[in-house]
């Protein structure tokens, strides 16, 4: 008998679902912080209200290994590594010509990433940049999405000073990981620039004294007008070179804070929503967090790709 009615369910099932949803909304409104401020005298069971979220920006250490404090975000990044290696092993240890479902999903993601690399960087360079860009993408994406699972931030363990400490915390919310990824991306871009263009030619983008010195030389040889023109434009060139250097270094700070701010802001948002209305209000924000995790991963890897492409093109592009 074909399923009729709304959303494939029969009418009584739909009524049941709506009633359960309304009950959850009402219990959430009464039990949370909003209900507590409107109706302070209801006696609600002990397990219902959520305590006020205590946000701590530096990650808490869980145990010590030879004087190095292992924080809960390090443990979460280990879990991400295990999940990524597990998926990679499961997909590749017996690849078939007609792919299984997991294999075709991973192939879709990798092919999308390869097309992005080839679109931005061209055919040859696209393949060259593909490994590290995709690694950064998958690592940031898995960190962001795995931190939405239940258990991250709620499983407590006694820390080194005796107070309860969350066992797991989203790895992107510790500022060290975005900083490490930004430094890796910076070193990668500089290494590619120097190895493709030669060290001296690459440095000419930042220390651009050739026109200035030509102007000084012309001044000494007696051509006053050309000399002063050369000196003036050469000074502008030197200033632009300093600005380029500064913008390369500021890129590290901007990558770090973009990823860290998005992830930490999302986590604080979900915690606050769960504090206000416990069971229901956090659901749209979980959807937003999924989207934000994906966008931040694409932006981080896409920007690395764009800056690597810019670093590899020869400097004389605009004069040719």
């Amino acid at each position, binding site marked *: 008998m074909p399923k009729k009615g709304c959303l494939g369910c029969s009418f009584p099932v739909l009524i049941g679902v709506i009633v359960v949803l309304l009950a959850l909304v009402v219990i959430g409104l009464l039990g949370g912080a909003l209900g507590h401020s409107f109706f302070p005298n209801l006696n609600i069971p002990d397990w219902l209200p959520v305590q006020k979220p205590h946000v701590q920006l530096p990650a808490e250490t869980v145990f010590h290994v030879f004087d190095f404090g292992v924080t809960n975000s390090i443990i979460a990044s280990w879990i991400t590594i295990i999940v990524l290696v597990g998926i990679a092993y499961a997909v590749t240890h017996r690849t078939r010509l007609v792919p299984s479902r997991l294999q075709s999903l991973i192939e879709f993601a990798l092919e999308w990433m390869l097309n992005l690399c080839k679109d931005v960087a061209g055919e040859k360079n696209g393949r060259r940049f593909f490994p590290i860009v995709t690694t950064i993408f998958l690592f940031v994406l898995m960190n962001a999405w795995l931190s939405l699972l239940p258990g991250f931030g709620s499983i407590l363990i006694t820390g080194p000073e005796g107070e309860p400490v969350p066992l797991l915390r989203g790895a992107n919310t510790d500022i060290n990981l975005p900083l490490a990824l930004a430094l890796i991306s910076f070193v990668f871009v500089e290494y590619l620039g120097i190895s493709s263009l030669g060290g001296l030619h690459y440095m000419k983008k930042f220390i651009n004294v050739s026109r200035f010195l030509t102007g000084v030389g012309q001044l000494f040889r007696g051509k006053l007008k050309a000399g002063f023109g050369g000196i003036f434009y050469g000074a502008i060139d030197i200033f632009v070179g300093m600005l380029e250097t500064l913008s390369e270094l500021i890129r590290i700070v901007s990558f770090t804070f973009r990823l860290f701010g*998005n992830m930490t802001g999302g986590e604080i948002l979900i915690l606050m929503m769960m504090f206000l209305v416990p069971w229901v209000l956090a659901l749209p924000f979980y959807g937003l967090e999924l989207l934000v995790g994906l966008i931040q991963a694409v932006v981080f890897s896409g920007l690395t790709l764009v800056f690597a492409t810019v670093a590899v093109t020869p400097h004389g592009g605009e004069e040719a």
Partner: protein
Amino acid sequence: MTPETIKLIAAGLCMGLGAIGPGIGIGVLGMGAMQALGRNPEARGPIMTNMILGIAFAEAVAIYALVVAVVLVFVA
């Protein structure tokens, strides 16, 4: 005016004023993308990809303001 009060006011001002610029910027980006999409619906792929990239750049500035506000409320 205790320091507590001023920190809270500062956090609110920081996030509020810091979201004006990126909000306008994202709106302008969206307008450009809609106009481009209206002229040339076949170029939907590159238009959307570049729009998302531009929006992430603009949103990063708002996120810097959010980080300062969070530090003001919870750390300082």
